Protein backbone atom coordinates (compact mmCIF):
# COMPACT_ATOMS: atom_id res chain seq x y z
CA UNK A 1 0.00 0.00 0.00
CA UNK A 2 2.85 2.34 0.75
CA UNK A 3 4.21 1.75 -2.72
CA UNK A 4 1.05 2.84 -4.46
CA UNK A 5 1.05 6.01 -2.43
CA UNK A 6 4.62 6.76 -3.39
CA UNK A 7 3.92 6.21 -7.05
CA UNK A 8 0.89 8.46 -6.85
CA UNK A 9 2.94 11.23 -5.27
CA UNK A 10 5.66 10.93 -7.86
CA UNK A 11 3.07 11.19 -10.58
CA UNK A 12 1.67 14.35 -9.01
CA UNK A 13 5.16 15.77 -8.72
CA UNK A 14 5.76 15.33 -12.39
CA UNK A 15 2.41 16.83 -13.16
CA UNK A 16 3.34 19.95 -11.24
CA UNK A 17 6.70 20.04 -12.91
CA UNK A 18 5.08 19.85 -16.32
CA UNK A 19 2.58 22.53 -15.43
CA UNK A 20 5.42 24.74 -14.28
CA UNK A 21 7.44 24.21 -17.42
CA UNK A 22 4.49 24.67 -19.71
CA UNK A 23 3.37 27.83 -17.92
CA UNK A 24 6.87 29.18 -18.10
CA UNK A 25 7.11 28.37 -21.77
CA UNK A 26 3.66 29.69 -22.55
CA UNK A 27 4.42 32.87 -20.71
CA UNK A 28 7.75 33.32 -22.42
CA UNK A 29 6.37 32.78 -25.88
CA UNK A 30 3.26 34.79 -25.31
CA UNK A 31 5.34 37.70 -24.17
CA UNK A 32 7.50 37.54 -27.19
CA UNK A 33 4.73 37.09 -29.67
CA UNK A 34 2.89 40.24 -28.74
CA UNK A 35 3.94 43.32 -30.60
CA UNK A 36 6.72 45.17 -28.89
CA UNK A 37 9.86 44.17 -27.07
CA UNK A 38 11.38 45.55 -23.89
CA UNK A 39 14.05 47.70 -25.46
CA UNK A 40 11.82 49.32 -28.02
CA UNK A 41 9.15 49.87 -25.43
CA UNK A 42 11.63 51.39 -23.06
CA UNK A 43 12.78 53.77 -25.70
CA UNK A 44 9.19 54.68 -26.53
CA UNK A 45 8.51 55.37 -22.87
CA UNK A 46 11.52 57.58 -22.64
CA UNK A 47 10.48 59.43 -25.74
CA UNK A 48 6.97 59.87 -24.46
CA UNK A 49 8.00 60.99 -21.02
CA UNK A 50 10.80 63.27 -21.91
CA UNK A 51 9.56 64.41 -25.26
CA UNK A 52 12.72 63.74 -27.13
CA UNK A 53 12.69 65.46 -30.45
CA UNK A 54 15.23 63.28 -32.12
CA UNK A 55 14.48 59.58 -32.11
CA UNK A 56 17.05 57.35 -30.52
CA UNK A 57 19.48 56.05 -33.06
CA UNK A 58 18.98 52.63 -34.46
CA UNK A 59 22.47 51.60 -33.53
CA UNK A 60 22.02 52.18 -29.84
CA UNK A 61 18.83 50.21 -29.87
CA UNK A 62 20.57 47.39 -31.69
CA UNK A 63 23.39 47.39 -29.18
CA UNK A 64 21.08 47.14 -26.26
CA UNK A 65 19.11 44.39 -27.91
CA UNK A 66 22.28 42.46 -28.41
CA UNK A 67 23.36 43.00 -24.84
CA UNK A 68 20.15 41.58 -23.59
CA UNK A 69 20.07 38.84 -26.12
CA UNK A 70 16.94 40.13 -27.76
CA UNK A 71 18.24 39.90 -31.26
CA UNK A 72 18.54 36.19 -31.41
CA UNK A 73 15.59 34.22 -32.56
CA UNK A 74 12.87 33.18 -30.23
CA UNK A 75 13.81 29.61 -29.74
CA UNK A 76 17.44 30.36 -29.01
CA UNK A 77 16.42 32.91 -26.43
CA UNK A 78 14.11 30.47 -24.84
CA UNK A 79 16.65 27.71 -24.52
CA UNK A 80 19.33 30.02 -23.20
CA UNK A 81 16.92 31.47 -20.67
CA UNK A 82 15.91 28.07 -19.53
CA UNK A 83 19.49 26.91 -19.25
CA UNK A 84 20.55 29.88 -17.21
CA UNK A 85 17.51 29.56 -15.03
CA UNK A 86 17.89 25.94 -14.16
CA UNK A 87 21.64 25.75 -13.88
CA UNK A 88 22.44 29.04 -12.25
CA UNK A 89 19.12 30.38 -10.97
CA UNK A 90 20.04 33.31 -13.09
CA UNK A 91 17.30 35.67 -14.16
CA UNK A 92 19.71 37.95 -15.87
CA UNK A 93 20.87 41.34 -14.80
CA UNK A 94 18.41 43.90 -13.65
CA UNK A 95 17.73 46.35 -16.43
CA UNK A 96 17.75 49.28 -14.17
CA UNK A 97 19.95 48.40 -11.24
CA UNK A 98 22.56 47.13 -13.67
CA UNK A 99 24.67 45.06 -13.08
CA UNK A 100 23.03 43.66 -9.96
CA UNK A 101 21.50 40.37 -10.94
CA UNK A 102 17.74 40.29 -10.80
CA UNK A 103 18.04 37.22 -8.66
CA UNK A 104 19.76 39.16 -5.92
CA UNK A 105 17.09 41.81 -5.82
CA UNK A 106 14.42 39.19 -5.60
CA UNK A 107 16.29 37.29 -2.91
CA UNK A 108 16.53 40.39 -0.76
CA UNK A 109 12.88 41.20 -1.07
CA UNK A 110 11.51 37.70 -0.72
CA UNK A 111 11.78 37.19 3.06
CA UNK A 112 9.76 40.29 3.74
CA UNK A 113 6.95 39.07 1.56
CA UNK A 114 6.94 35.55 2.90
CA UNK A 115 6.95 36.76 6.47
CA UNK A 116 3.98 39.03 6.03
CA UNK A 117 2.06 36.76 3.70
CA UNK A 118 2.78 33.57 5.58
CA UNK A 119 1.70 34.89 8.93
CA UNK A 120 -1.37 36.61 7.54
CA UNK A 121 -2.55 33.53 5.67
CA UNK A 122 -2.06 31.18 8.59
CA UNK A 123 -3.80 33.49 11.01
CA UNK A 124 -6.72 34.06 8.66
CA UNK A 125 -7.19 30.42 7.83
CA UNK A 126 -7.14 29.25 11.41
CA UNK A 127 -9.29 32.05 12.73
CA UNK A 128 -11.72 31.65 9.85
CA UNK A 129 -12.16 27.95 10.52
CA UNK A 130 -12.76 28.52 14.22
CA UNK A 131 -15.26 31.30 13.66
CA UNK A 132 -16.98 29.43 10.87
CA UNK A 133 -17.39 26.35 13.05
CA UNK A 134 -18.94 28.38 15.85
CA UNK A 135 -21.19 30.12 13.35
CA UNK A 136 -22.32 26.84 11.85
CA UNK A 137 -22.89 25.19 15.19
CA UNK A 138 -24.77 28.05 16.79
CA UNK A 139 -26.51 29.44 13.78
CA UNK A 140 -29.64 30.22 15.72
CA UNK A 141 -28.00 32.77 17.95
CA UNK A 142 -28.51 36.47 17.48
CA UNK A 143 -24.94 37.29 16.65
CA UNK A 144 -24.95 34.69 13.92
CA UNK A 145 -26.92 36.54 11.26
CA UNK A 146 -25.01 39.69 11.92
CA UNK A 147 -21.70 37.91 11.63
CA UNK A 148 -22.89 36.24 8.47
CA UNK A 149 -23.87 39.47 6.78
CA UNK A 150 -20.69 41.17 7.89
CA UNK A 151 -18.73 38.25 6.56
CA UNK A 152 -20.54 38.18 3.25
CA UNK A 153 -19.70 41.79 2.64
CA UNK A 154 -16.15 41.90 3.93
CA UNK A 155 -15.08 38.74 2.19
CA UNK A 156 -15.94 40.24 -1.17
CA UNK A 157 -13.91 43.39 -0.77
CA UNK A 158 -10.66 43.08 -2.72
CA UNK A 159 -7.78 43.11 -0.26
CA UNK A 160 -6.06 46.05 -1.87
CA UNK A 161 -9.17 48.21 -1.71
CA UNK A 162 -9.47 47.41 1.96
CA UNK A 163 -5.80 48.31 2.26
CA UNK A 164 -6.54 51.72 0.79
CA UNK A 165 -9.40 52.26 3.18
CA UNK A 166 -7.32 51.17 6.15
CA UNK A 167 -4.38 53.37 5.24
CA UNK A 168 -6.71 56.27 4.63
CA UNK A 169 -8.52 55.95 7.91
CA UNK A 170 -5.81 54.78 10.24
CA UNK A 171 -2.75 56.45 8.82
CA UNK A 172 -3.87 59.63 7.19
CA UNK A 173 -6.92 60.58 9.16
CA UNK A 174 -6.28 59.10 12.55
CA UNK A 175 -2.51 58.82 12.37
CA UNK A 176 -2.41 55.70 14.49
CA UNK A 177 -0.40 53.56 12.15
CA UNK A 178 2.49 54.40 9.89
CA UNK A 179 1.81 55.01 6.28
CA UNK A 180 4.28 52.61 4.90
CA UNK A 181 7.57 50.83 5.00
CA UNK A 182 8.48 47.87 7.09
CA UNK A 183 10.39 49.73 9.75
CA UNK A 184 11.12 53.27 10.87
CA UNK A 185 13.97 54.93 9.01
CA UNK A 186 16.31 55.49 11.91
CA UNK A 187 15.75 52.38 13.91
CA UNK A 188 18.55 50.06 14.84
CA UNK A 189 18.00 46.71 13.21
CA UNK A 190 18.79 43.42 14.81
CA UNK A 191 17.31 41.14 17.37
CA UNK A 192 16.25 43.77 19.84
CA UNK A 193 12.74 44.25 21.10
CA UNK A 194 12.33 47.76 19.79
CA UNK A 195 13.02 46.62 16.29
CA UNK A 196 10.62 43.74 16.52
CA UNK A 197 7.85 45.90 17.86
CA UNK A 198 8.56 48.43 15.17
CA UNK A 199 8.30 45.70 12.55
CA UNK A 200 4.99 44.56 13.92
CA UNK A 201 3.75 48.09 14.10
CA UNK A 202 4.50 48.62 10.46
CA UNK A 203 3.22 45.26 9.37
CA UNK A 204 -0.07 45.62 11.15
CA UNK A 205 -2.15 47.42 8.55
CA UNK A 206 -0.88 45.45 5.56
CA UNK A 207 -1.51 42.22 7.44
CA UNK A 208 -4.97 43.40 8.44
CA UNK A 209 -5.91 44.07 4.83
CA UNK A 210 -5.37 40.45 4.10
CA UNK A 211 -6.55 39.00 7.39
CA UNK A 212 -9.89 40.77 7.50
CA UNK A 213 -10.89 39.67 4.04
CA UNK A 214 -9.58 36.15 4.12
CA UNK A 215 -10.75 35.32 7.63
CA UNK A 216 -14.30 36.17 6.76
CA UNK A 217 -14.07 34.34 3.47
CA UNK A 218 -12.90 31.19 5.23
CA UNK A 219 -15.49 31.69 7.92
CA UNK A 220 -18.30 31.68 5.41
CA UNK A 221 -17.12 28.58 3.62
CA UNK A 222 -16.53 26.80 6.92
CA UNK A 223 -20.01 27.65 8.10
CA UNK A 224 -21.48 26.14 4.96
CA UNK A 225 -19.35 23.02 5.40
CA UNK A 226 -20.38 22.64 9.00
CA UNK A 227 -24.04 23.03 8.17
CA UNK A 228 -23.71 20.40 5.50
CA UNK A 229 -21.98 18.01 7.84
CA UNK A 230 -24.59 18.48 10.52
CA UNK A 231 -27.04 16.81 8.18
CA UNK A 232 -24.91 13.70 7.80
CA UNK A 233 -25.83 10.33 9.24
CA UNK A 234 -22.69 9.96 11.27
CA UNK A 235 -23.51 13.09 13.18
CA UNK A 236 -26.89 11.65 14.02
CA UNK A 237 -25.30 8.55 15.44
CA UNK A 238 -22.67 10.59 17.25
CA UNK A 239 -25.43 12.56 18.92
CA UNK A 240 -27.34 9.40 19.74
CA UNK A 241 -24.20 8.19 21.43
CA UNK A 242 -24.35 11.14 23.71
CA UNK A 243 -20.89 12.40 22.92
CA UNK A 244 -19.83 15.52 24.73
CA UNK A 245 -20.06 18.60 22.50
CA UNK A 246 -16.34 19.29 22.45
CA UNK A 247 -15.56 15.83 21.20
CA UNK A 248 -18.31 15.97 18.69
CA UNK A 249 -17.29 19.30 17.28
CA UNK A 250 -13.60 18.61 17.10
CA UNK A 251 -13.48 15.02 15.98
CA UNK A 252 -16.66 14.64 14.02
CA UNK A 253 -17.22 18.02 12.50
CA UNK A 254 -13.91 19.85 12.32
CA UNK A 255 -11.88 16.90 11.16
CA UNK A 256 -14.27 16.38 8.29
CA UNK A 257 -13.94 19.97 7.18
CA UNK A 258 -10.17 19.85 7.10
CA UNK A 259 -9.85 18.35 3.67
CA UNK A 260 -12.09 20.78 1.80
CA UNK A 261 -10.59 23.69 3.69
CA UNK A 262 -7.05 22.66 2.87
CA UNK A 263 -7.95 22.27 -0.77
CA UNK A 264 -9.62 25.66 -0.60
CA UNK A 265 -6.48 27.18 0.83
CA UNK A 266 -4.34 25.74 -1.93
CA UNK A 267 -6.66 27.07 -4.59
CA UNK A 268 -6.88 30.51 -3.02
CA UNK A 269 -3.15 31.01 -2.82
CA UNK A 270 -2.82 32.37 -6.32
CA UNK A 271 -5.67 34.73 -5.65
CA UNK A 272 -4.17 35.93 -2.38
CA UNK A 273 -0.80 36.52 -3.96
CA UNK A 274 -2.47 38.60 -6.65
CA UNK A 275 -3.85 41.01 -4.12
CA UNK A 276 -0.66 40.90 -2.14
CA UNK A 277 1.37 42.59 -4.85
CA UNK A 278 -0.87 45.61 -4.62
CA UNK A 279 -0.92 45.67 -0.86
CA UNK A 280 2.84 45.87 -0.76
CA UNK A 281 2.75 48.66 -3.27
CA UNK A 282 0.23 50.64 -1.27
CA UNK A 283 2.20 50.29 1.93
CA UNK A 284 5.58 50.60 0.31
CA UNK A 285 6.55 47.36 1.95
CA UNK A 286 9.97 46.11 0.83
CA UNK A 287 8.85 42.79 -0.55
CA UNK A 288 8.63 41.44 -4.05
CA UNK A 289 5.37 43.25 -4.62
CA UNK A 290 7.01 46.59 -4.31
CA UNK A 291 9.98 45.37 -6.30
CA UNK A 292 7.59 44.34 -9.03
CA UNK A 293 5.94 47.74 -9.09
CA UNK A 294 9.24 49.54 -9.31
CA UNK A 295 10.25 47.24 -12.09
CA UNK A 296 7.00 47.98 -13.87
CA UNK A 297 7.54 51.66 -13.68
CA UNK A 298 11.05 51.29 -14.99
CA UNK A 299 10.23 48.49 -17.40
CA UNK A 300 12.89 46.27 -15.94
CA UNK A 301 12.25 43.22 -18.01
CA UNK A 302 14.47 40.73 -16.27
CA UNK A 303 13.26 41.54 -12.81
CA UNK A 304 9.67 41.30 -13.96
CA UNK A 305 10.22 37.95 -15.59
CA UNK A 306 12.16 36.77 -12.60
CA UNK A 307 9.47 37.71 -10.12
CA UNK A 308 6.78 36.12 -12.20
CA UNK A 309 8.68 32.89 -12.59
CA UNK A 310 9.56 32.91 -8.92
CA UNK A 311 5.98 33.47 -7.86
CA UNK A 312 4.72 30.76 -10.18
CA UNK A 313 7.25 28.40 -8.75
CA UNK A 314 6.41 29.03 -5.15
CA UNK A 315 2.69 28.90 -5.59
CA UNK A 316 2.92 25.61 -7.43
CA UNK A 317 5.26 24.25 -4.81
CA UNK A 318 2.92 25.31 -2.03
CA UNK A 319 0.09 23.56 -3.81
CA UNK A 320 2.17 20.44 -4.16
CA UNK A 321 3.17 20.44 -0.51
CA UNK A 322 -0.43 20.80 0.50
CA UNK A 323 -1.32 17.87 -1.72
CA UNK A 324 1.30 15.86 0.08
CA UNK A 325 -0.63 16.45 3.26
CA UNK A 326 -3.88 15.03 1.94
CA UNK A 327 -3.31 11.41 2.92
CA UNK A 328 -2.57 12.57 6.44
CA UNK A 329 -5.80 14.46 6.66
CA UNK A 330 -8.19 12.09 5.03
CA UNK A 331 -7.66 8.36 5.35
CA UNK A 332 -9.83 7.68 2.36
CA UNK A 333 -7.10 9.09 0.14
CA UNK A 334 -4.44 6.75 1.34
CA UNK A 335 -5.30 4.08 -1.13
Amino acid at each position, binding site marked *: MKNKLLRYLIRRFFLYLIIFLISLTAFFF*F*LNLVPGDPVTRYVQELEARYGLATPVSEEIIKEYKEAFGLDKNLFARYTSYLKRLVLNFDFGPSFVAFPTPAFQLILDAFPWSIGLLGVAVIVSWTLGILLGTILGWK*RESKGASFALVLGLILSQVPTYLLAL*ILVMVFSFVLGIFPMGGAYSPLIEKGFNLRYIIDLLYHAFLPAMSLILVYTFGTMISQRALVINILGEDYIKLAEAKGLKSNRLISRYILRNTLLPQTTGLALSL*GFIVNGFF*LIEWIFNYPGIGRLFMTAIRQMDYNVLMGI*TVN*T*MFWVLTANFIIELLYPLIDPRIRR
Partner: protein
Amino acid sequence: MRIFKSSPKFTVGVIIISILIVIALLEPTINNHRLGGHSSTEIGLYETSLPPSKEHPFGTDAYGRDVFSLILTGLKYSLLIGFIAGGLATLIAVVLATTAGYKGGWLDAFITTVSNAILIIPSWPILAIIVLFVRKVDLFFLSLILAFFSWAGSSRQIKPQIASLKERPYVELARVTAFSDIEIMFKEILPNFLPYIFVGFSYAVTGTMMAETALRLVGLGPADIPSLGQILNWALYAGALAQGHYFLVLTPIVILILLFVSINLINVGLDEVYNPRLKQITGV
Protein backbone atom coordinates in the same frame (compact mmCIF):
# COMPACT_ATOMS: atom_id res chain seq x y z
CA MET B 1 -39.86 34.85 -9.76
CA ARG B 2 -39.97 32.84 -6.61
CA ILE B 3 -36.29 33.49 -6.31
CA PHE B 4 -37.00 37.04 -5.32
CA LYS B 5 -39.33 35.94 -2.60
CA SER B 6 -37.25 33.17 -1.15
CA SER B 7 -33.93 34.90 -1.09
CA PRO B 8 -33.60 38.40 0.30
CA LYS B 9 -29.90 38.31 -0.51
CA PHE B 10 -30.62 37.79 -4.16
CA THR B 11 -33.16 40.59 -4.18
CA VAL B 12 -30.85 43.07 -2.49
CA GLY B 13 -28.05 42.16 -4.86
CA VAL B 14 -30.23 42.60 -7.90
CA ILE B 15 -31.54 45.93 -6.68
CA ILE B 16 -28.11 47.36 -6.05
CA ILE B 17 -26.61 46.27 -9.30
CA SER B 18 -29.65 47.41 -11.24
CA ILE B 19 -29.37 50.85 -9.75
CA LEU B 20 -25.72 50.99 -10.68
CA ILE B 21 -26.37 49.79 -14.20
CA VAL B 22 -29.12 52.34 -14.69
CA ILE B 23 -26.83 55.09 -13.48
CA ALA B 24 -24.14 53.92 -15.87
CA LEU B 25 -26.59 53.87 -18.76
CA LEU B 26 -27.65 57.38 -17.94
CA GLU B 27 -24.10 58.59 -17.77
CA PRO B 28 -23.92 60.08 -21.27
CA THR B 29 -27.08 62.07 -20.65
CA ILE B 30 -26.08 63.28 -17.21
CA ASN B 31 -22.57 64.21 -18.22
CA ASN B 32 -23.70 65.93 -21.37
CA HIS B 33 -26.00 68.03 -19.29
CA ARG B 34 -23.42 68.83 -16.66
CA LEU B 35 -20.37 69.32 -18.81
CA GLY B 36 -21.98 70.78 -21.88
CA GLY B 37 -20.44 68.43 -24.41
CA HIS B 38 -17.01 68.12 -22.86
CA SER B 39 -15.58 64.81 -21.78
CA SER B 40 -15.35 64.20 -18.08
CA THR B 41 -11.67 63.33 -18.43
CA GLU B 42 -10.81 66.62 -20.07
CA ILE B 43 -8.14 68.36 -18.14
CA GLY B 44 -8.51 71.88 -16.94
CA LEU B 45 -12.24 72.24 -17.42
CA TYR B 46 -12.67 73.68 -13.97
CA GLU B 47 -10.54 75.05 -11.22
CA THR B 48 -8.37 72.44 -9.56
CA SER B 49 -8.96 70.93 -6.13
CA LEU B 50 -12.23 72.60 -5.31
CA PRO B 51 -14.06 71.33 -2.24
CA PRO B 52 -17.55 69.81 -2.59
CA SER B 53 -20.22 72.33 -3.51
CA LYS B 54 -23.62 72.43 -5.13
CA GLU B 55 -22.09 72.71 -8.54
CA HIS B 56 -19.49 70.04 -7.86
CA PRO B 57 -21.03 67.54 -5.43
CA PHE B 58 -17.69 65.84 -4.92
CA GLY B 59 -15.46 68.73 -5.75
CA THR B 60 -12.81 68.77 -8.43
CA ASP B 61 -9.53 66.92 -8.62
CA ALA B 62 -5.98 68.13 -9.12
CA TYR B 63 -6.42 68.17 -12.91
CA GLY B 64 -9.47 70.39 -12.78
CA ARG B 65 -12.01 67.70 -13.51
CA ASP B 66 -15.39 67.39 -11.89
CA VAL B 67 -15.17 64.38 -9.66
CA PHE B 68 -18.83 63.49 -9.81
CA SER B 69 -18.87 63.25 -13.60
CA LEU B 70 -15.56 61.47 -13.58
CA ILE B 71 -16.86 58.82 -11.26
CA LEU B 72 -19.95 58.30 -13.39
CA THR B 73 -17.76 57.74 -16.42
CA GLY B 74 -15.60 55.41 -14.40
CA LEU B 75 -18.63 53.39 -13.33
CA LYS B 76 -19.75 53.12 -16.91
CA TYR B 77 -16.44 51.80 -18.12
CA SER B 78 -15.95 49.49 -15.16
CA LEU B 79 -19.27 47.86 -15.90
CA LEU B 80 -18.64 47.83 -19.62
CA ILE B 81 -15.28 46.15 -19.37
CA GLY B 82 -16.55 43.82 -16.71
CA PHE B 83 -19.48 42.66 -18.78
CA ILE B 84 -17.61 42.34 -22.04
CA ALA B 85 -14.65 40.53 -20.54
CA GLY B 86 -16.95 38.54 -18.32
CA GLY B 87 -19.10 37.63 -21.25
CA LEU B 88 -16.10 36.45 -23.22
CA ALA B 89 -14.87 34.48 -20.26
CA THR B 90 -18.24 32.84 -19.79
CA LEU B 91 -18.43 31.99 -23.45
CA ILE B 92 -15.06 30.28 -23.31
CA ALA B 93 -15.98 28.55 -20.08
CA VAL B 94 -19.30 27.28 -21.42
CA VAL B 95 -17.85 25.97 -24.64
CA LEU B 96 -14.99 24.24 -22.89
CA ALA B 97 -17.08 22.94 -20.04
CA THR B 98 -19.74 21.58 -22.34
CA THR B 99 -17.21 19.89 -24.56
CA ALA B 100 -15.30 18.47 -21.64
CA GLY B 101 -18.35 17.37 -19.73
CA TYR B 102 -20.02 15.83 -22.71
CA LYS B 103 -17.09 14.07 -24.24
CA GLY B 104 -15.53 13.07 -21.00
CA GLY B 105 -12.42 10.96 -20.98
CA TRP B 106 -9.02 12.45 -21.59
CA LEU B 107 -10.37 15.67 -23.07
CA ASP B 108 -12.19 16.31 -19.85
CA ALA B 109 -9.10 15.57 -17.78
CA PHE B 110 -6.99 17.81 -19.99
CA ILE B 111 -9.32 20.77 -19.84
CA THR B 112 -9.74 20.35 -16.10
CA THR B 113 -6.00 20.32 -15.57
CA VAL B 114 -5.53 23.39 -17.70
CA SER B 115 -8.27 25.29 -15.94
CA ASN B 116 -6.92 24.30 -12.53
CA ALA B 117 -3.45 25.43 -13.54
CA ILE B 118 -4.79 28.81 -14.61
CA LEU B 119 -6.65 29.10 -11.34
CA ILE B 120 -3.70 28.23 -9.18
CA ILE B 121 -1.08 30.39 -10.80
CA PRO B 122 -1.29 34.03 -9.76
CA SER B 123 -2.42 35.86 -12.81
CA TRP B 124 -1.86 39.44 -11.84
CA PRO B 125 1.88 39.68 -12.47
CA ILE B 126 1.46 37.98 -15.81
CA LEU B 127 -1.37 40.29 -16.77
CA ALA B 128 0.63 43.28 -15.66
CA ILE B 129 3.60 42.34 -17.76
CA ILE B 130 1.50 41.67 -20.81
CA VAL B 131 -0.31 44.97 -20.55
CA LEU B 132 2.94 46.75 -19.94
CA PHE B 133 4.72 45.43 -22.95
CA VAL B 134 1.99 45.45 -25.52
CA ARG B 135 2.08 48.67 -27.38
CA LYS B 136 -1.53 49.43 -27.88
CA VAL B 137 -4.01 48.05 -25.47
CA ASP B 138 -7.53 48.70 -26.63
CA LEU B 139 -10.83 47.60 -25.18
CA PHE B 140 -10.93 44.40 -27.15
CA PHE B 141 -7.44 43.26 -26.28
CA LEU B 142 -7.93 44.13 -22.64
CA SER B 143 -11.15 42.18 -22.49
CA LEU B 144 -9.52 39.30 -24.27
CA ILE B 145 -6.66 38.84 -21.86
CA LEU B 146 -8.88 39.45 -18.85
CA ALA B 147 -11.20 36.78 -20.16
CA PHE B 148 -8.30 34.43 -20.77
CA PHE B 149 -7.47 34.39 -17.10
CA SER B 150 -11.02 34.47 -15.82
CA TRP B 151 -12.69 31.67 -17.65
CA ALA B 152 -11.18 29.08 -15.36
CA GLY B 153 -13.05 30.36 -12.32
CA SER B 154 -16.27 30.50 -14.26
CA SER B 155 -15.76 27.02 -15.58
CA ARG B 156 -15.49 25.63 -12.09
CA GLN B 157 -19.02 26.70 -11.37
CA ILE B 158 -20.42 25.34 -14.58
CA LYS B 159 -18.59 22.06 -15.00
CA PRO B 160 -20.15 19.94 -12.27
CA GLN B 161 -23.62 20.82 -13.43
CA ILE B 162 -22.88 19.84 -16.98
CA ALA B 163 -21.51 16.52 -15.90
CA SER B 164 -24.72 15.69 -14.11
CA LEU B 165 -26.99 16.82 -16.89
CA LYS B 166 -25.26 14.51 -19.29
CA GLU B 167 -27.03 11.59 -17.73
CA ARG B 168 -30.51 12.98 -18.09
CA PRO B 169 -32.97 10.97 -20.19
CA TYR B 170 -33.63 13.50 -22.88
CA VAL B 171 -29.97 13.50 -23.68
CA GLU B 172 -30.04 9.76 -24.14
CA LEU B 173 -33.04 10.20 -26.36
CA ALA B 174 -31.32 12.76 -28.50
CA ARG B 175 -28.31 10.52 -28.82
CA VAL B 176 -30.40 7.66 -30.02
CA THR B 177 -32.05 9.79 -32.64
CA ALA B 178 -28.67 10.38 -34.23
CA PHE B 179 -28.31 14.10 -33.70
CA SER B 180 -24.72 15.03 -34.12
CA ASP B 181 -22.75 15.62 -30.97
CA ILE B 182 -22.64 19.34 -31.45
CA GLU B 183 -26.34 19.51 -32.02
CA ILE B 184 -27.02 17.61 -28.83
CA MET B 185 -24.73 19.81 -26.88
CA PHE B 186 -26.25 23.02 -28.03
CA LYS B 187 -29.88 22.20 -28.48
CA GLU B 188 -30.57 19.86 -25.62
CA ILE B 189 -28.09 20.45 -22.87
CA LEU B 190 -27.41 24.15 -23.00
CA PRO B 191 -30.94 25.48 -22.55
CA ASN B 192 -31.22 23.74 -19.20
CA PHE B 193 -28.13 25.25 -18.07
CA LEU B 194 -29.15 28.82 -18.17
CA PRO B 195 -29.24 29.35 -14.40
CA TYR B 196 -25.79 27.86 -14.03
CA ILE B 197 -24.43 29.80 -16.97
CA PHE B 198 -25.79 32.85 -15.28
CA VAL B 199 -23.91 32.02 -12.11
CA GLY B 200 -20.79 31.39 -14.15
CA PHE B 201 -21.32 34.75 -15.80
CA SER B 202 -21.56 36.62 -12.54
CA TYR B 203 -18.41 34.93 -11.28
CA ALA B 204 -16.67 35.90 -14.49
CA VAL B 205 -17.80 39.48 -14.20
CA THR B 206 -16.52 39.80 -10.64
CA GLY B 207 -13.31 38.11 -11.57
CA THR B 208 -12.60 40.31 -14.55
CA MET B 209 -13.61 43.46 -12.75
CA MET B 210 -11.28 42.67 -9.89
CA ALA B 211 -8.41 41.89 -12.21
CA GLU B 212 -9.05 45.01 -14.23
CA THR B 213 -9.22 47.21 -11.15
CA ALA B 214 -6.00 45.70 -9.88
CA LEU B 215 -4.29 46.54 -13.14
CA ARG B 216 -5.67 50.05 -13.35
CA LEU B 217 -4.82 50.87 -9.81
CA VAL B 218 -1.16 50.85 -10.71
CA GLY B 219 -1.70 52.72 -13.90
CA LEU B 220 -1.70 49.94 -16.42
CA GLY B 221 -4.27 49.87 -19.13
CA PRO B 222 -5.79 52.23 -21.69
CA ALA B 223 -6.17 55.62 -20.09
CA ASP B 224 -8.75 56.76 -22.58
CA ILE B 225 -11.31 54.31 -21.25
CA PRO B 226 -11.01 55.10 -17.59
CA SER B 227 -12.60 52.67 -15.23
CA LEU B 228 -13.02 53.28 -11.52
CA GLY B 229 -9.65 51.67 -10.91
CA GLN B 230 -8.04 54.18 -13.24
CA ILE B 231 -9.71 57.03 -11.44
CA LEU B 232 -8.33 55.75 -8.18
CA ASN B 233 -4.91 55.62 -9.70
CA TRP B 234 -5.13 59.23 -10.88
CA ALA B 235 -6.28 60.28 -7.46
CA LEU B 236 -3.50 58.50 -5.66
CA TYR B 237 -0.78 59.74 -7.96
CA ALA B 238 -2.03 63.28 -7.67
CA GLY B 239 -1.57 62.95 -3.96
CA ALA B 240 -5.18 62.82 -2.92
CA LEU B 241 -4.36 61.00 0.28
CA ALA B 242 -1.62 63.34 1.35
CA GLN B 243 -3.73 66.38 0.57
CA GLY B 244 -6.72 65.05 2.37
CA HIS B 245 -9.02 64.68 -0.65
CA TYR B 246 -10.53 61.61 0.80
CA PHE B 247 -13.68 61.82 -1.21
CA LEU B 248 -11.81 61.29 -4.37
CA VAL B 249 -10.43 58.04 -3.06
CA LEU B 250 -13.33 56.85 -0.99
CA THR B 251 -16.06 57.21 -3.59
CA PRO B 252 -14.58 54.97 -6.29
CA ILE B 253 -13.75 52.41 -3.60
CA VAL B 254 -17.25 52.42 -2.19
CA ILE B 255 -18.81 52.04 -5.62
CA LEU B 256 -16.43 49.21 -6.48
CA ILE B 257 -17.28 47.47 -3.23
CA LEU B 258 -20.97 47.87 -3.99
CA LEU B 259 -20.43 46.32 -7.38
CA PHE B 260 -18.57 43.32 -6.03
CA VAL B 261 -20.83 42.79 -3.05
CA SER B 262 -24.04 43.03 -5.03
CA ILE B 263 -22.93 40.49 -7.61
CA ASN B 264 -21.80 38.20 -4.85
CA LEU B 265 -25.13 38.52 -3.10
CA ILE B 266 -26.76 37.44 -6.32
CA ASN B 267 -24.47 34.43 -6.46
CA VAL B 268 -25.08 33.44 -2.88
CA GLY B 269 -28.80 33.97 -3.23
CA LEU B 270 -28.94 31.78 -6.32
CA ASP B 271 -26.90 29.14 -4.59
CA GLU B 272 -29.24 29.09 -1.63
CA VAL B 273 -32.25 28.69 -3.85
CA TYR B 274 -30.79 26.00 -6.04
CA ASN B 275 -29.05 24.06 -3.33
CA PRO B 276 -31.80 22.24 -1.48
CA ARG B 277 -29.65 20.62 1.22
CA LEU B 278 -28.56 23.96 2.58
CA LYS B 279 -32.11 25.19 2.63
CA GLN B 280 -33.53 22.20 4.38
CA ILE B 281 -31.06 22.26 7.18
CA THR B 282 -31.06 25.96 7.82
CA GLY B 283 -34.80 25.92 7.60
CA VAL B 284 -34.76 28.88 5.27
